[in-house]
């Protein structure tokens, strides 16, 4: 039996005999220029149809809005004024250990999906640089490829599977579109590709470009971490194209080390707002394969602050259910015996 929570090696857990290093992304949002090459490279490689109704959202330069069945990379754009920047810096500072985790409650610190991981900052000059009047955050979001993946654990058909690279992939030919995984994902990443939303729309006086036939209608879709490329030793399309290496691909362990070093570097420059997301294997999903360096609270980027896999407590629940069942059986037995006794 594999584990359903806590630190683990998900590949071994899934009983792969051909064991590869766990692969993942480290997305360093501090060097993202918001070009969206990742979004396009992902779509081109996976031949995902274009999304939505081709309307401007009015949300800065983000017209993609969220991850979905046909959008497996999404760049968020957040415009912030000085007050918010100071708050971010302060909230980061709170996360920074002034010795060791103690600021938040123990559970918050040890199981939070965000962590500073920059290590001990004592002795480092953390005087913040001039706080700018304004900043524009950009961050490319993607499937987290959780250590404990809710989507995978709840899939009744075996369409979702853990690959030998420790990633989580939907098999289009197996999925029956039941949608259980959609609810099972604590990040809202998985979506079924419906017929309606992906079809080209028409507006008054405008003919929209036709698209090739839309594949995999009705089937759950999400980032595969380019499983087809990984089996051939290639880099996933988004990471390969990223102009500034904001998206890094590699062995998960190395990436987490690199991410921690980068946070430490930014902290040393006084940017206490920098923090990691998904690098804590004690969080509610056992850490994620896709690790992020953020410059503000996760909510600012539309990420859940404290995701928990729905099956995390499954074993406890099983035990309790078993105990409850046993109790009921016992009660019934007692009652039966009691009646029997009375009848006797």
């Amino acid at each position: 039996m594999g584990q359903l929570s806590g630190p683990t090696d998900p590949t071994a857990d899934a009983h792969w005999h051909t064991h590869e290093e766990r692969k993942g992304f480290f997305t360093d949002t501090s060097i993202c220029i918001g070009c969206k090459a990742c979004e396009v490279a992902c779509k081109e490689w996976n031949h995902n149809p274009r999304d939505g109704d081709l309307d401007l959202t009015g949300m800065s330069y983000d017209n993609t809005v969220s991850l979905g069945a046909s959008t497996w990379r999404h760049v968020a754009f957040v415009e912030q004024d000085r007050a918010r920047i100071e708050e971010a810096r302060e909230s980061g500072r709170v996360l920074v250990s002034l010795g060791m985790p103690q600021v938040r409650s123990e559970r918050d610190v040890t199981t939070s999906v965000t962590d500073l991981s920059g290590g001990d900052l004592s002795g480092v000059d953390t005087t913040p640089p001039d706080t700018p009047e304004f900043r524009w955050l950009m961050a490319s979001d993607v499937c987290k490829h959780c250590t404990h993946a809710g989507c995978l654990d709840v899939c009744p058909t075996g369409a979702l599977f853990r690959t030998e690279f420790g990633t989580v992939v939907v098999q289009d030919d197996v999925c029956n579109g039941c949608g259980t995984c959609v609810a099972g994902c604590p990040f809202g990443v998985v979506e079924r590709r419906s017929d309606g939303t992906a079809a080209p729309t028409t507006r008054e006086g405008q003919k929209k470009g036709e698209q090739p036939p839309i594949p995999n209608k009705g089937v759950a879709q999400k980032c595969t971490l380019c499983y087809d490329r990984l089996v051939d030793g290639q880099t996933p399309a988004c990471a390969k194209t990223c102009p500034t290496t904001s998206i890094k691909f590699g062995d998960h362990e190395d990436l987490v080390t690199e991410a921690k070093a980068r946070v430490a570097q930014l902290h040393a420059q006084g940017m206490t707002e920098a923090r990691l997301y998904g690098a804590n294997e004690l969080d509610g999903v056992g850490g994620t394969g896709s690790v992020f360096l953020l410059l503000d609270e996760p909510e600012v980027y539309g990420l859940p602050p404290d995701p928990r896999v729905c099956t995390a407590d499954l074993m406890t629940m099983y035990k309790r259910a078993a105990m409850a069942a046993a109790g009921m059986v016992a009660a019934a037995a007692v009652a039966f015996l009691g009646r029997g006794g009375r009848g006797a």
Partner: protein
Amino acid sequence: MANADCIVLQGGNMAEAHPVGFQWVSEAKARGARVIHVDPRFTRTGAIADRHIAIRAGSDVVLLGALINHVLSNDLWFKEYVLAYTNAATLVSEDFRDTEELGGLFSGFDPATGQYDLQSWAYAEAGGDGGVGSPSGQAGEHGSSKSDRAAGDEHGSGGPSLEHAEVLRDETLQDPRTVFQVLKRHYARYTPQMVQELCGISEDDFTYLADSITQNSGRDRTTVFGYATGWTQHTLGAQFIRSAAILQLLLGNVGRPGSGIMALRGHASIQGSTDIPTLFNLLPGYLPMPKVGVHDSFEDYLEGIASKRQKGYWTHADAYTISLLKAWWGEHATADNDWCFDYLPRLSGPHGTYQTTVGMLADEVEGYFVLGQNPAVGSANGRQQRLAMSHLKWLVVRDLSLIESATWWKEGPEIDSGELRTEDIDTEVFFMPAATHVEKAGSFTQTQRLLQWRHKALAPPGEAQSELDFFFKLGQRIRAKLADSTDERDRPLLELTWDYPVDGHGDPDPEAVLAEINGRFVSGPDAGKPLSFYGQMATDGSTAGGCWIYTGVYADGVNQAARRVPGGGPSPSQHEWGWAWPADRRILYNRASADPDGKPWSERKKYIWWDEDQGKWVGDDVPDFPEDRAPGARPDPNIGGPEALAGDDPFIMQADGKGWLYAPKGLVDGPLPTHYEPWESPVANSLYPQQQSPTRVVFAREDNLGAPSAGTRGDEVYPYVFTTYRLTEHHTAGGMSRWLPYLSELQPEMFCEISPALAAERGLENNGWATIISPRAAIEAKVLVTDRVKTLTINGRAVHQVGLPYHWGVGTHAVVSGDAANDLVGVALDPNTQIQESKAGSCDIVAGRRPRGQALLDLVADYQRRAGATVDTDNVPRVTDPEAETVTPRPDGEVSGEDGFSRW
């Protein structure tokens, strides 16, 4: 750029326009380089920069001039470099008068023609009083040779001609006529306070910028500037770049690793299309097209390009020209007929795209080829462009899809407004499907002069074909139809070399064309062999070559542009990837990377240096200098040519071998950059009485009215500044992006970006609609209200800017469409480059969608009437009359009620 210690991105938005090039900026920044972005908007470049400095569009010369002043008055210039490598010590003619003396004009201005006589800008003459006479009796002033009126573009690879290279210098720089002292006086009033007043930049930001640049310049450190169309698209665009060049020369930031001024160009081969020009005023290799009255004889022509007595490689222009003529007319080009020089048509003035547009409107131009470009969307004053096309007899559009320039006759905005009716338009339109970049082989020249060959991956689909194929076959057909002609004027066509080898489909071999461009020996022992470098070109007709600066790209019969050694090989200059012109040099003027004695300025910035033992220049690049010219060599400057270059003359294409702080010629609007307001501007020029550039090229026409500039009647009607730009997600006029679903969905609709203050002033809501009105047109756009656009305080008054991406156009074939920002832009040009001022104009903005049909025309006309805009507005008089009646600026938004026109 990756080697720079400080990177200033101004007049360009590199992260958005060149994301992949930006990796080198990111890398420099990660290494500790400081990155500063100066732009009207906080862009995606600003998001990564150490600091973004908001500037009012069109005021860059004030800022750069103030930096020059800062460097000069605080003695921060790089002394050894400036003294040895620039013309700082050179004396200027006594006749020269600066803008300080003449209210914003230089000496020599003729208000009747709107042009300068460049005579008085010349260097002072030896043995004279700086006056006109010269020993030979001819007008020997440096400023007076035959290429005076040449546009700056013609000097793309070299400086303009000087009669000779003998100059007077005062190495102490004390003489008030030295360039150094002239410069000091010219910029004395460009102060941080002036920057605050005209650019809207705080003194704190100015100090930060000035300190960043000066602290990162010198022996050990270098600063680089990156610009794009934010500098070129102004009525004084060339001077924007000149002002950065002066600053960089003063700081020793030219010709060295991590230095310079990088033009960040926007098209795959925009550099190539200037080198091998599809431009009216040039022949390949920046040789000028001959002009009537100036270049009537071949002798005049050659004399006009470069005097034999000046220094440097331009003195061999005769060999380059004759080789070009031999390449084109082969055996027919002989010494007896001046190598067919008379087969070249003559110019009589500027024949740029906007002059051509006027020619179409006057029914002078009958046929028009539009090749991978979309003028209905991408050119200034789009309505004028489309109306002009409706006057054509025939139009050929070659593109990948049915762009707006191919469909204006059935679905353009003028059909909707009722100005044009499809059934009345006589224009024949041919749409010819084009091949994509993978369906043809050929070379692009990228922004750093690197030629890279593309191999053909597969055949074009359907009837699509490359331009090479199309024009080759069109040429064949034309020649066949004229084959029996005895008309003398058909001879240039019939005698043209047009016999390229073809493949099985009759398509010409692009490598054969590249070989012709490279050149070959026509006669002699090596007859038929490719040339290896342009020095082999001869004046006796024994060589042919289509573009001298590209000679070497086919050296040894090998396509050097196709070199693909991974990573470019082990050398730091990455020589083994593609081929850079000229002669595969990666950094131009790299002699300047060593000190006057030939030693590296510092270990950190070592690049090219003099090796005493080998007796030659060595280093990480091909030396851009005579290889064996010792640093101490001082040949007689009068011998002319490369032989005359002294060992410390790094600027080998300039007539005197020096970097020009002061340009005695080459620019037609002034020897020194001077701030003028844009053609139309709601801001008054506080530096000079002269409001606009006196030499601006204008088109005083009803279809191209200007908004009244600050201080004139009606200036409140178009109170805001608009500026246009591109987004990462789209490409220019959209022909290669709005037809692609993946790009279209990322930026689906035309929008404008405005500050919260302007939104409040005009009642505009985020993601609501706005109508933007200029004297040319009214367009609608969605609204993005954002702190990324700041309201600036200029001359004590709030100035709002409206940001407009220009990628959308009106049609039904693209995945996404919308109104075109360029419809708003007026046609007013830089006299040097004939580039239009797209980066700063005047507009109004109101909430809601624009009206349709006739009501749209009424709206535009109503604004024009209220503003009192006429064909004279901003055009006549050229010289601002300080006595003219002016009005006091009203507070923003207040409408002049006296005319009885209400705001729409």
